[in-house]
């Protein structure tokens, strides 16, 4: 059963069209991440699902029930806010039980639910404190506790980790994921952080300019980005994209970067049948930085030895875990991720291995994925 169905949803503020015909179906138990740059409409979409804002057109269905005209409190949802939105004058205990108080849940039942959630989140010692006496991570937990105690059909998270420092963010990220695996809740999670999206989601909806660009599981999003926006948005460093020409040689497609230049790069493709349609045409080639490595690297389970090319190095960025290299492929700039102990000299040529199994080809006009 679909826990959440969004049909033809649009939202307009005066002249500004924030959401343009969103369709999404989210299954029960899924961890869906809405990800996109600021202003893409993801938070507005979440607000509309929560019932805090009204859509201009379209329907929202939660648990098989159209909720367009149902107020937030009756939608069977719970929400965690970026600012946590804990009630400042209430203790942690009161914060968590306020919803049940509003719903006139009897006392013993309230206490039981509170105890349950407090144990799950390990916040028992904090119950009598006020939010001002809590650290950022503790506030985050309490905010989640307030949502969990509702046991709703749908959890909505609005950038819940953005106010935490980097270390805590990674910890809480894992904790939320663990929590999802443990209680099997249906979660819609908004973030602008593509790493959060990749690590937590069972499915990702990449949004841009009020539209869902792609809605798929993280591997598909990463491996087969539906268009150039998704390709460049997901991944850090982002996918290298560059103009290239598609030709057919010996009955197979070959993509040529910097065609006609003395340093042109020719990459033979296998398994890219859709590419034949672009024979002798311009395409946009996408290649992830981790598909360019030091010579001698074997890529995963690739059967053949990878193609090795000589390319000029412009700059290197050692990060500790790897060395990020800015190089030129047929004159086009590209980033490579190579082994941390290899430091090619800027300005010189160095050998690089290319993993051609995971290239992406895009139509230069529509920017859509070809293959």
């Amino acid at each position, binding site marked *: 059963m679909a826990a959440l169905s969004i049909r033809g949803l649009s939202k307009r503020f005066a002249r500004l069209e924030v959401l343009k015909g969103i369709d999404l179906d989210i299954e029960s138990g899924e961890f869906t991440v809405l990800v996109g740059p600021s202003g893409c409409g993801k938070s507005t979409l979440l*607000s509309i699902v*929560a*019932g*805090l804002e009204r859509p201009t057109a379209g329907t929202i269905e939660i648990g098989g029930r159209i909720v367009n005209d149902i*107020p*937030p*409190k009756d939608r069977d*949802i*719970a*929400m965690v*806010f*970026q*600012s*946590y*939105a*804990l*009630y*400042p*004058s*209430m203790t942690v205990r009161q914060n968590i039980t*306020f*919803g049940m108080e*509003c*719903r006139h849940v009897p006392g013993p039942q309230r206490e039981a639910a509170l105890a349950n959630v407090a144990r799950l989140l390990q916040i028992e010692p904090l119950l009598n404190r006020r939010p*001002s006496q809590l650290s950022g991570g503790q506030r985050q937990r309490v905010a989640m506790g*307030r949502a969990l105690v509702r046991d709703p059909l749908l959890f909505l998270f609005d950038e819940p980790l953005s106010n935490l420092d980097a270390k805590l963010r990674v910890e809480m990220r894992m904790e939320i994921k663990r929590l999802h695996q443990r209680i099997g809740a249906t979660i819609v999670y908004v973030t602008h952080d593509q790493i959060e999206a990749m690590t937590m989601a069972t499915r990702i909806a990449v949004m841009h300019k009020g539209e869902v660009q792609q809605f798929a599981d993280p591997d598909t999003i990463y491996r087969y980005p539906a268009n150039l926006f998704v390709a460049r948005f997901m991944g850090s460093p982002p996918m290298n994209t560059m103009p290239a020409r598609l030709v057919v040689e010996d009955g197979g497609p070959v993509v040529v970067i910097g065609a006609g230049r003395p340093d042109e790069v020719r990459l033979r493709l296998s398994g890219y049948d859709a590419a034949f349609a672009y024979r002798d045409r311009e395409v946009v080639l996408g290649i992830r930085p981790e598909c360019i490595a030091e010579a001698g690297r074997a890529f995963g389970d690739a059967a053949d030895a990878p193609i090795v090319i000589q390319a000029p190095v412009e700059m290197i960025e050692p990060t500790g875990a790897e060395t990020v290299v800015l190089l030129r492929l047929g004159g086009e700039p590209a980033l490579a991720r190579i082994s941390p102990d290899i430091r090619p000299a800027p300005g010189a040529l160095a050998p690089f291995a290319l993993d051609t199994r995971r290239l992406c080809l895009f139509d230069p006009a529509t920017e859509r994925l070809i293959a």
Partner: protein
Amino acid sequence: MKWSRLIIHAALIALALLFLVPLGVVVVNSLRSSQEIAATSMIGWPGHLTFANYGQAWNHFCMAEHCWGIEPYMLNSFTLAVPATILSTLLGALAGYSIALWRFRGDQMIFALVTLGIFLPEQMKLIPWVVVLRDLSLMNTIAGLVLIHTVQGMSFTTLFCRNYYVGIPQDLMKAARIDGAGFFRIFWRIVLPLSPPILIVTVIFQFTGIWNEFLFGVTFTSGGQQPVTAALIALSAAITSEPMYGEQSAAVLIAALPTLLVYLFGGRYFLSGLTAGAVK
């Protein structure tokens, strides 16, 4: 450096003393007998310290044909100022809350109209109030003055509270709505507990303003119904015929005491409340 500082301080102290002279004269005279003042001068040290003036002023002194001192008028002022302060503050808080934290059609317009009340001179409103009080049969009653001050006070209290409440994060409101709290529950359980800083400001402001208000008091009440500020007018009438500086000084001081106390005990909160920002 040192000299310039000294000069500045000396000048400031001298000016401060100058401003305090009238108060000083009244305080000193309240401790002298009227006979002594009449025999010597209005300005002078008490030859013989006496507190009898206060007792006289409180419930024996004769003003406007009654010899019951200012006690009944003080009580009138309290029964006027206390309910009007509480009512106008609570209503202003409620109005400020709905304007600041809820969107409804015409909210900005209503806010503009309410705050316009601050800028309307009192004299302008006399005639409309005459009509209202007459039609409600509240002429010459304390209740009528309570009504006037509650309604008029709301301009200020709404403005103060609204400006304070806009600092409350919208996420709190959203969280409360999802939790299932309605308009009044959010007000009582979430917004009001965050309000003491601004409520102290409005209470001080309203109480002082209503206590000291004079025009409506003399216009709409007479005789035993008058608040103390209006009743004191009889004092100045008496001064020209038969000066009783001792008792009169004491009466003025008693009448000023509540607002002075409010200032002394609440002034601190008033200043900190005015600058208090949003609630994190």
